[in-house]
């Protein structure tokens, strides 16, 4: 059974690009674009890895991450944070809230695949 990645991202083109490379690499992918309902989707999909944008409509990726970590049922899910805001304090915030990895946009496709693979195999 293919490992499952949930992509929480509101930019349609970016969603399409990441989805393409993950599918090509043999992952199963589901996507979600609204911050407010992202946690519900996570609880129902129970992905192996979450790729989480920060600047989401209605609820920021940081808030979603915080709530995720507080929920025992899904709290251990590895999270890769992707953001177009490349400042250091965003990285610090992400790591403090419990992100497993932090990447700034634009990114290299192969790096994304590598990181997701690593997080899935060994979340620590």
């Amino acid at each position, binding site marked *: 059974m293919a490992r499952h990645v949930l992509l929480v991202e*509101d*930019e*349609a*083109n*970016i969603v*399409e*690009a*990441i989805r*393409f*490379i993950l599918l090509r690499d043999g992952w199963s992918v589901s996507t979600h*674009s*609204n911050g407010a309902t992202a946690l519900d989707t996570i609880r129902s999909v129970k992905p192996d890895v979450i790729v989480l944008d920060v*600047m989401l*409509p*209605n609820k920021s990726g940081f808030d979603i991450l915080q709530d995720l970590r507080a929920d025992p049922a899904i709290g251990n899910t590895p999270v890769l944070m992707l*953001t*177009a*805001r*490349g*400042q250091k304090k965003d990285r610090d915030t992400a790591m403090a809230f419990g992100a497993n990895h932090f990447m*700034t*946009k*634009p*990114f*290299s*496709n*192969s790096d994304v695949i590598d990181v997701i693979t690593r997080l899935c195999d060994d979340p620590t």
Partner: protein
Amino acid sequence: MISLDLLIGLSVLYVIFLFVVAFLAERAAQRGRGAWLRSPLIYTLSLSIYCTAWTFYGAVGFAARSGLEFLTIYLGPTGVMIGWWLVLRKLVQIGRAERITSIADLISSRFGKSTLLGGIVTALAVIGTTPYIALQLQSVTLSLEVFNENASANGPASIAFWVAVGLAVFTIIFGTRNLDVNERHSGVVMAIAVEAIVKLVALLAVGAFVVWGVAGGVGNVLNSIDASPIARWEVSNARWLGLTFLSAAAFLCLPRMFQVLVVENSDERHLAVAGWAFPLYLLAMSLFVVPIAVIGLELMPAGSNPDLFVLTIPLAFGQEGLAMFAFLGGFSSATSMVIVAAIALSTMVSNHLVTPIWIRATESGASVSGDIRSVVLLSRRVSIAVVLGLGYLYYWLSGGGTALAAIGLISFTGMAQVLPAMLGGLFWRNATGIGAAFGLLVGFTVWLYSLFLPSFGPDVMLSSDVIENGPWGIGWLRPQALFGVTGLDPVIHAVFWSIALNAFVFVVGSLLTSPTPMERLQMMQYVGVTDLGRQARGRVESGADSEDLLIMAQRILGPEEAQFLFRSAAAGQGLTGYLPEPTAEFLEQLERSLAGSVGSATANAMLTQMLGQSNVSVEDLLAVADETAQIMEYSSQLELQSAELTKTAQQLKDANDKLMQLSHQKDAFLSQISHELRTPMTSIRAFSEILQTAGLSAHDQTRYASIILEESQRLTRLLDDLLDLSVLENGQVQLDLSHVQLGDILNRAVDAADPEGQLKIKRRKSAEDKHLMTDAGRLAQVFINLISNARKYCDGDPKELTIRTRNQGDFVVIDFVDNGTGISRADQSVIFEKFARVSDQQKAGSAGLGLAICKEVMANLGGTVAYLPGQGGAAFRVAVPKEYQATGG
């Protein structure tokens, strides 16, 4: 023929009568029944000691020799009395406040209680008064000789001697009975008042006899006067001016005058009465002088002494009773002068010569112990004897040869030397004791050299060679032609040089030296005292002068507050100006105000001192006040600085906050820019990498390439918008103004914003036929933004946009209303901010700068763009001026 014994007996009886008067008056005063003794009338009569035997007899002689010039002797005192509020009132006020006992005491006290000055003035007074006393003795002797050629059988000197002894006894008995703190002598003053009446009535009686009894009426007298050389106006202005000044100065400075004017004054209000009554007395005394002189010269044998016409005319016409009465008048004039002069001089001698020496002697290890009171009394009694002894000695030495008037003027000039120091002391703050001492010594020396010593005649004191050629032949040092000034009357010459040099040295000396602290303290008491008697109050209630209080209050409270306080207090008392009466109520109020500044203890101490109730130095307190004021000034400056610092700090804090805010805004903006730039770049990079890999379908390749293109355009638009916004915000926009139709601009905008017709746009073209003068391109940019937003974000189905236009004053209003759900109230306030995005419906291509740019464009065009709530869907209203105006109006 009146026998000498009769006259002497009469004199003795008269003196006994005076004894009784003085005794009764003194007893009445001691029993507190002497209110009438302190009436202004008695005060005025006591001033009559100015009119001595010199005036009684001598004025006639003076008139006979020099014509109307004798009037100068009356004019000076008349001026002083009429102008009593100028100098006399202040003298009396100070005399009371400072318990002044003599003119020497006044000068000494004013200049820091200087022993030296007291001694100088005393010496001056003794030397200056001695000839005057001799003059009185001479007049008594001469008048006795008139009655009896043999009167001088025992030598005139013996008569003079016994007169001197008698007067000494009388003066000792009534002048040194007690040591009153005020040095007032009710008995003596009463006796003098009686004598004043006796001499006035005597002179008037002789005058009346001469006019009506001898000359045969007023008309005849006037004719005689017209025919007489006396009536001829042969006076030099210098002499008139000089003599009037001299008599005025002497009136103030003569020890005996100071005694009755100031020391014996019991009530300041008496001055107001004496101010007119004493000139009247002088007028009465001078009324018959010219008639007596004229008739005397006309009728009396040639060579008769005109000084004695008052006696010789009645005698020549067999009026022995009248002559005896006249003799008593002359005797009164002489004795009253001698008595008061002796009292005044003895007070000065004992206080300023004997006591200081005695105190010094006992201090320097001597074992003398005893009551200083007895020493003072003894020294006074001895002084009286010595003063009269000196008078007698002068009389004996001068041989009675000089005309009476000349002696009087010599004495006047001597005592007038005190005038500069006295006036300077009263009115000049910078006067110093050293200046006064040198001035007095110079004036005194000039007087001695130019007037006193030559007055004995050539070769008595000064050799005739010195008088004519100057000492050692130095011409400009000739005693009666100093500095080569010749042709002046000797008296005027001496008055001019002595007073001028005295005053000059006094002023220069005062300017070159600075007052000692004690002198400054006394200066405050003297120069500061003014106008307490404005309402002619009997007593100086508080001893405090409102002006002094104001000066002090200004130092402590500051001028504005102090003046306000004083002015309102004065207004409360119904007065105008800054000086309220120092009533208890006002003083209490003042103390409270001062206490607010310097503390209640200091305020109380200051006021207590100002009220003359303690011994703290006023100078010290004023220094404290100055210091306090400086400290307060300093502290208020500090407060001011502190307030300024606080203000500056607040401004800095505000500026810093603003900078912080700007910095945050900049961070947020950069963060936004970063996000907006990175997002399309992410897609571009990701799909570029995908395109590099093999095995893509042609469809996918085309699709991904178009995504890359689309995102590239999005990037370009974003950069264009950023630059545009920057230009708009900086106001660097070059507007391209032209006359256009609104409809044309809307057509252009619709074509550009919705080329594919995704929106159903409702317009009323007829309403759009509006003429505008504006930048059509910029206005179209706003419209394109708004129409694009509707196309992108409107969630109506189908999407509809209604464009309504209408005029509103100088503006054209264009509303853009779509049929979507609109923008939430919370978001309405932020949509015009940069990068504001309000919903999850945003589409690629929006950078969130559109409305911010619209807002800036409309501001540049002089119009507005605003969200229009309550229209169903999203609604924006644009207001654009019909005619663009550069000022933005």
